[in-house]
């Protein structure tokens, strides 16, 4: 985010910040970083909703499996000892591995569970997605019992797993700065921002993007124009899954811990972000993600951590009741 890069000289130039200001800036950094990750996952919700009007309940739990795959790769390659340039290379491997895995798995889920129900009532599809979410949570639970040292030797399947920090936690603003800005924040920005740009380009300017917009507008008309609707929907799931995979690896590296239930939490944050921004709208998902990330960080900091989920759910409910089209949904009709 350009905001962060703009902050660096400002803070470096003025080390004499008041403690309240330091706290505020730290929450801001954490909020923006988590917000960008939430935005990436929210895009997966908003794209699928835009195209088949399904709240893909299983999306967050799909991402969980991506994080578990990443931890498995770390354990298999002994990557938790890697640092420096090797650490960065490791993160790149994890990103590609998890993104590919989530993309493939999301395609399979669509093919086996959702596609046979294309013409069924919408709530049937939603119930299927809830069921799929439960199945994926359970797979993650069993996966957490894998007999590897990174999973705690498989004895505590349900316990949260420590995710090794592959990227240095040294403060880029200098050791004596109270405001923390590390290579991890740079990783978040470096992964999420290019992906958002690439996605925008894909949706706006490629043939696939054009057909996606056409299917979102009217699937029947699109198929009459010779667009293979099922292939386009499949591609949407692949892209959404891949973004989720990227997002969750960055999330795991940034926050240092994963658990089999993380998908529910993260997924609800991301879904709230998508709704807040206006579901179906890509810029909306990004805006909503940033807002939810900031809201979480400030609620953790100034309120209490235990009330944060309540705050997020309250926002979700209030937005759904009072402005169901979200912040950008009504104005920008560009559905993906």
């Amino acid at each position, binding site marked *: 985010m350009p905001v962060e890069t703009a902050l660096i000289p400002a803070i470096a130039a003025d080390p004499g910040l008041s403690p309240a200001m330091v706290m505020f800036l730290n929450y801001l950094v954490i909020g923006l970083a988590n917000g960008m990750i939430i935005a990436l996952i929210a895009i997966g919700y908003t794209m699928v909703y835009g195209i088949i009007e399904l*709240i893909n309940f299983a999306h967050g739990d799909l991402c969980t499996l991506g994080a578990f795959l990443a931890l498995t790769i770390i354990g298999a390659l002994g990557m938790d000892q890697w640092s420096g340039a090797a650490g960065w290379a490791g993160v790149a491997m994890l990103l590609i591995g998890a993104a590919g895995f989530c993309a493939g798995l999301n395609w399979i889920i669509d093919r086996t569970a959702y596609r046979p129900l294309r013409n069924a009532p*919408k*709530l049937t599809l939603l119930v299927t997605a809830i069921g799929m979410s439960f199945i994926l949570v359970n797979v993650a639970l069993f996966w957490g019992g894998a007999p590897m040292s990174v999973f705690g030797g498989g004895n505590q399947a349900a316990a949260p797993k420590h995710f090794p920090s592959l990227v240095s936690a040294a403060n880029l603003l200098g050791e004596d700065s109270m405001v923390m800005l590390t290579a991890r924040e740079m990783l978040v920005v470096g992964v999420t921002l290019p992906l958002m740009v690439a996605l925008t380009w894909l949706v706006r300017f490629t043939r696939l993007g054009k057909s996606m917009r056409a299917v979102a507008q009217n699937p029947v008309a699109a198929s009459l124009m010779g667009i293979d609707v099922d292939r386009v929907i499949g591609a949407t799931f692949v892209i959404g899954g891949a973004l989720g995979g990227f997002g969750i690896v960055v999330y795991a590296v940034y926050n240092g811990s994963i658990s089999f239930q993380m998908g529910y939490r993260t997924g*609800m944050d991301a879904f709230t972000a998508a709704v807040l921004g206006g579901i179906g709208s890509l810029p909306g998902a990004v805006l909503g993600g940033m807002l939810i990330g900031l809201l979480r960080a400030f609620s953790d900091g100034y309120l209490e951590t235990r009330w944060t989920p309540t705050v997020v*759910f309250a926002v979700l409910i209030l937005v759904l009741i009072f402005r*169901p089209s979200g912040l950008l949904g009504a104005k920008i009709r560009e559905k993906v």
Partner: protein
Amino acid sequence: MRARSIWSRLLRLDVALLVVALFIPLFDHWFHLGLSSPLRQCLVYAILALGLNVVTGFTGMLHLGMAAFMAIGAYAYGILTCDIYPFQLSFWPALAATTVIGVIAGALLGAPTMALRGDYLAIVTLGFGEIVQDVLKNLESITQGTRGINPLPGPVMFGHRFGTESPYPWFYLYLGFVVVIVIVCRNLERSRTGRAWLAIRGDELAARCMGIPAVRMKMLAFATGAAIAAIAGALWASLYTSTGEPANYDFQVSVLALCIVIVGGMGSITGVLVGALAMIGFANLLLPRTASWLQEQGWVTQASVFGNPNNWKYLVFGLVLVLMMRFRPDGILPRSVGRRAGAST
């Protein structure tokens, strides 16, 4: 209207279920089957699912927060009866008050949300469920946080105080609650209101055009479901003499209720009963027993993730939902066409 003989009435599945249920404690006692605990849980979940059936089955609104209303019922019962609070009511007045509180809670959530589209309503109910759980956990000064409210009194009936010495009076009392609620639901279904609900489920726009006040009717269904769920919560708390921790009323419970309704057949009351038997029988009887049998064989250990029966529940709930939606969306016992709205019985 065709007069039906007593035999055709007896042959109805729900009556047959009731007759079998009446004798279960006898068999359980003679053969030491250990069924009394799962059966009582089954009865409470059947009540919860009957409440969900009014909302989702009759009216077609997907409700993902039934556990929240169950929690509200349990905590209302706890606060009204426990001796650390000023009210200290006994079972029956507390249960009546809990029902009223359930109606009010349902109406409060329903009022602003009934105009929402189906999937948005589902998400709002889900969010409400999470908020209720968090509030109950965090407002320790009122709700005792994760300790739960206890001890709670059991029911008193004809001078008999229900206690821990025998499970069977509980079973018969709770069976009685199920019977009463089934009768209430059946009568509701055949009433003007019930026919309006079924019409809304069929096609809300068409129902509105026929002059049905859809929003008001949906709210009525929502509040009725909430009241029944609150009763289930109060019965649960009374059975265990404690509300338990707020996490006992999590999203899993709401989805379990949904599974029961979907397995049985949305809108089919007998279906809900069969669904409750199937799901609770599976989750609380078959799974633990299979696990302990496997452990005796030495194939799995309690410590391993596969050996703990609770770890399989998510998978079973998920598979049930996915497979039912794919292959039998109307459930095991679908509402038969002849008993649709308007057909006189």
